[in-house]
């Protein structure tokens, strides 16, 4: 498996740049790295709110929330989530939050 170096720390990732070890390796430095590859200029409170919501839901339920649930818990409509994360809630926000790669017929 590939690994990524960012500011002196290395992370194990898959081809799509998702963290293989999830929460175990996730930290603010990872967020800073993903910011650069996912077209995000600055991590704002709104970004943080989405990340927190994803991590909390994943910790509790063992899966990523459906898009509607993410919108409900954060109060951000899908449009706003794409403004925050240009690749969208799956490729953008889940990657940044250290959740596993979305699967299925995508």
């Amino acid at each position, binding site marked *: 498996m590939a690994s990524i170096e960012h500011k002196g720390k290395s992370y194990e990732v898959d*081809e*799509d740049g*998702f963290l293989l070890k999830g929460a175990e390796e996730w930290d603010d430095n990872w967020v800073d790295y993903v910011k650069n590859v996912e*077209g995000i200029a600055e991590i704002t409170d709104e970004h943080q709110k989405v990340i927190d919501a994803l991590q909390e839901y994943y910790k509790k339920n063992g*899966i990523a929330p*459906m*898009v*509607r649930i993410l919108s409900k818990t954060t109060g951000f409509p*899908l*449009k706003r989530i*794409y403004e925050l994360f*240009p*690749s*969208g*809630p*799956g*490729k953008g926000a889940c*990657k940044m939050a250290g959740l596993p*790669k*979305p*699967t*299925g*017929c*995508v």
Partner: protein
Amino acid sequence: MAKHETPLLDELEKGPWPSFVTDLKQQAETKPECWDILGQLELSYVDRITHWKHGGIVGVFGYGGGIVGRYSDVPDKFPGVEHFHTVRIAQPSGLYYSTENLRALMDLWEKYGSGVTNMHGSTGDMIFLGTRTENLEPLFWDLTHDLNQDLGGSGSNLRTPACCLGESRCEWACYDAQEICNALTQHYQDEIHRPAFPYKFKFKFSACPNDCVAAIARSDFAVIGTWKDDIRIDQAAVKQYMAGAEGYPANGGSHKGGNWGAFDIQKEVVDLCPTNCMWMEGDELKIDNSECTRCMHCINVMPRALRPGVEKGASICIGAKAPILDGAQFATLVIPFIEVSAEDEFGEVIDVIEKVWDWWMEVGKNRERVGETMQRIGLPTFLSVMEVEPIPQHVKEPRSNPYVFWKEEEVPGGWERDVVEFRKKHAA
């Protein structure tokens, strides 16, 4: 990239059907990575297992779908397919192209990808097969800026809508399938590009019940053309068919390769009508249109003599899906007849779509197709959220079990009962 030995695939160059192996070899002359496509496929033929890794999440900024990521699990052997992503390109309704447009698309794909395509994916998209992650954004830039074209859909969203070729060259079209397909594709760009649904959702538009785009089987929301008034009969043309006149072969000559004897209108049309609503009076064909289910058979057999009526529209059927998870389904009739008119920008159809989405987005479970949600919650509830009065046409047959639910307000006295009151009349 090295050429590989492909003895098994080479067998598929024999025989009369166009060989994908021959085509790939030809493409490999200008795009050497195609040797690795052949090489990995040959390996799969030998090992009898796929050599693509699980999943893949790639895309372009702004969209949550449109590109299906794929990586080889033997990239050292076949570096040309280490990344082999598939790009879905929105196709024109009815798949009419100019060579100018196709050449421009292929120039683009030769520049950024393998040059290998699928014309078209079963949902309808033009499919570009095989490129690397770093090519996706440049490809998307050129596609949108130079060719004025867009990606199709993938993921839990509205997938690329498709239609039959409709009024463009079919005399049976009951509405302009291409027009509504294009209009709704434009109208719902957001829903196509940014997944917001519990699961995938597909539109398909067929302009008559022959259903040339298989809407009833392959779309969650099928719009199938029909008519309300009488089948138009040209009795002179009927006589021509009966006489076996030149230019009047049954079924437009579809069976001319076999020896089926002279055309027999009684045997081939009247007796095959599923509702038995046709008969001959002398040499005149009669139809009791009130009993006609508009199955298209008589029209299909005698296209020059019989035509759909003039009061045209469509039926809407909802909920078709493949077997996973709880069994395959055809779509269920929900709206027997609806006007399909570009004059109100298809407002009536849009109203129906939005009612389905409002409900399904709220109650649909994760990865539950709308057809499964309908099964789980029940047709009566679905019809009530659709604001449709239940009618006999909604079922093929009434239920045979007696497990009938009633609403409390429908039952005098309601559900609140006191057992003490009951015991006054019935000792324990």
